[in-house]
């Protein structure tokens, strides 16, 4: 039954004592765990070094914030609070280090806070290129990757050969293919694959071993096939803007209950930040460099040199045959909120209806959002009938 699989995933992603991680590590004393924050992280590289990459996407509504608020003013988003809370509560005891990708000033500064708070633990601010010329940004990024790889080799005590890296890329390609197949099915039959279920299944991959997760995604899809879920109608929407701090699962369910079929979204963008599978031959670091320069998905944290973001969203709407867009951004998230007026205007120009609201990962009240989303879904129905 797909519901059982989803329940297992929900348990896994809400287990902030990271029991899975503990057991994974305990199975072999040479194993190491690298935590990372959203979005863009070269997981195959960590995997090749014998590490379990574990994405910390925030603590959601499950983590009560007691200490975290003492570190951040009220006008900073919520994700770093729950992250610090978990850290101060010793929840990351099995982690050997953390990567802080360069996606915004908050995560950037969090990397420095981490260095101050936990001086003995490996912490890397992982700089991504905003220049997409292979000779400039590409060269710089490859150097960053090489440094990261060298650091991982020190942490694991294991030299990584190019063949190891290629094998990891292959395993992540399989995972990527499984997730994109799920995305495809969601677009085709969203009533069979509710976004709230898909979310839990994909997010489990932020914690699990890659191959185990690939199997899980396939098992889930097979289970849905076997369940022969009945058709139900709704307004097809793309949700945009939630690429870093994640909306609470109940918020996604609220949108669904309000009559939205979420056919595409940018939740958990890190699980599929490249737009195609990666080549499996050649130099592993070159492949990962090229992946970011040429294949990385747009997000508000990545410079948009060719002004593609508006077309990108419109294309997403067209490909998923969506009736409208819900812009859904974390409160106080500069990258997402600064993009909002541009993207909204672009949708207006193209006659694509949109609505927007903000959330925090610990939002607990959904009544207002339900009403707003319900009204929007109804208007989309009318609009599409017209």
């Amino acid at each position: 039954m797909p519901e059982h699989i989803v329940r297992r995933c929900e348990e896994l992603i809400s287990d902030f004592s990271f029991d899975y991680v503990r057991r994974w590590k305990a199975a072999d004393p040479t194993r190491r765990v690298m935590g990372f924050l959203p979005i863009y992280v070269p997981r195959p590289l960590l995997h090749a070094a014998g590490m379990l990459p574990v994405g910390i996407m925030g603590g959601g509504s499950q983590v009560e914030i007691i200490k975290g608020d003492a570190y951040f003013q009220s006008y900073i988003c919520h994700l770093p609070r729950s992250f610090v809370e978990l850290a101060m509560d010793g929840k990351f005891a099995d982690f050997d280090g953390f990567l802080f990708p360069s996606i915004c000033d908050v995560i950037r500064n969090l990397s420095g806070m981490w260095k101050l708070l936990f001086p003995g633990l490996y912490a890397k601010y992982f700089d991504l290129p905003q220049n997409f010329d292979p000779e400039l940004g590409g060269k710089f990024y490859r150097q960053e990757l090489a440094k990261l790889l060298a650091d991982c080799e020190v942490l694991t005590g294991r030299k990584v050969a190019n063949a190891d890296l290629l094998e990891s890329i292959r395993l992540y390609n399989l995972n990527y293919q499984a997730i994109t197949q799920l995305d495809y099915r969601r677009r085709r039959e969203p009533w069979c694959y509710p976004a709230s279920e898909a979310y839990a299944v994909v997010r489990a991959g932020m914690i699990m071993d890659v191959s185990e997760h690939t199997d899980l995604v396939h098992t889930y899809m097979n289970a849905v096939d076997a369940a022969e879920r009945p058709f139900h109608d709704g307004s097809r929407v793309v949700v945009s803007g939630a690429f870093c701090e994640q909306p609470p699962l109940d918020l996604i369910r609220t949108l669904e209950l309000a009559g939205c079929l979420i056919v595409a979204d940018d939740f958990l963008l890190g699980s599929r930040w490249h737009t195609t599978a990666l080549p499996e031959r050649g130099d592993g670091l070159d492949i990962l460099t090229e992946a970011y320069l040429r294949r990385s998905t747009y997000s508000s944290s990545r410079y948009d040199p060719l002004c593609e973001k508006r077309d990108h969203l419109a294309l997403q709407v067209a490909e998923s045959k969506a009736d409208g867009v819900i812009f859904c951004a974390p409160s106080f998230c500069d990258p997402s909120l600064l993009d909002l007026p541009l993207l909204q205007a672009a949708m207006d120009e193209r006659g694509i209806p949109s609505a927007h609201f903000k959330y925090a990962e610990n939002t607990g009240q959904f009544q207002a959002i339900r009403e707003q989303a319900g009204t929007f879904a109804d208007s989309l129905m009318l609009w599409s009938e017209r």
Partner: protein
Amino acid sequence: MSTIHKEESMVMQKTMIADHFEQLARAQQEGRKVVYTFVPGNLTELILAFDLLPVHPEINALQSGMRKISGDYIREAERLGHSEDVCTYVKCDVGMLMKGNLGPTGRPLPPPDLLLLSYTGCFTFMKWFEILRSHYDCPVIMIQVPYQGDGRITPEMTDYVSEQLRKELVPALEKLSGKRLDEERLRALLQRSRVAEENLVWALESAKRRPSPIDAYFGGVYYIGPIFTAFRGTQACVDYYALLRREIEARLEAGQGPLTPDGLLAEEKYRVVVEGPPNWTSFREFWKMFYDEGAVVVASSYTKVGGTYDRGFRHDPARPFASLAEYCLGCYTNLNLPDRVQMLTDYVRDYAADGFLINSIKSCNSFSAGQLLILREVERRTGKPGGFIESDLVDPRYFSGANIKNRLESYFQMIDLKRQEQYS
């Protein structure tokens, strides 16, 4: 109305700024090309080497704040769909653009011929120019300046920035200006920068004396003006800093404190270090809260956003591109948190401060995220009391005068208490 006391250097700076905006107002008519760019990591010498005119949107925003018109601009941007949560500099700029793009002198600003995004230490810069790009039909050059995540500048970082300057920026500037880069001219500009930088550092470090002849935050924002903006590399800039130095020397000789808008500070009671940008909408009121209590800011991090010259950096005509790259990489906004803590700790010690204060800016994630930890760390390392106030750069809705005044008064009392403890 009481007279506002001004130093001669302030008057000189005012004239320099007025001339600059006059040139900008005539730019289109005279066929001069305009480059919009940001203060941290600005590449003024390169821009000037091509006879182009720089415009700094943050300066326009802060000027709008000081002239108390930023509130209207911000509301205009919010009316257009900009969130109340984001950086108010951006919204102020968007609102100003929508309302006719009038510069601080009331004359219209020309549209950019190039948006030069030398993206140092703040992601919002990137979003800001993506927004402006959608309003203007002009090229954008993005110079990525890697962040000092590990607290140091590596050779790879310097190479990356200088290669971007050579391969992307210079050709764009050549195309825009129709001129080839004259390296000798660039070197001459950098040499003048260096001379001015020496005097700026001397001025800032004069605050180590007791009483301090300057206020290194409220006065400091004037002192950094020419070097952080359109003038670095010019003779006017060199002259400005020479004049500033003479003024400070005179006060030092006379044993005088800093000049405030209400005249010379009679007695220096508290020496504090300040982290974070000031509030611009109530700048005078904010400053008065300090000098009325006899508080002098002896060092501040904000006066390093456009260059950490007091840590030894100087533009170097012998290595033009590498030194421009190192300049960008070294700006305060590009330092990691442990480095910021160390710098503030050093300031408290080197400037014999009684404590330090953080003015946390609601709009500015780049500065604000992590400041509560900075507060604790600096307090722990120095044993001096830390204070925390909150305001905004240019959104008047977030400046609560009474609240800040109360906090400051309690803070100064805390310093008194600490002193009593020491001597009892």
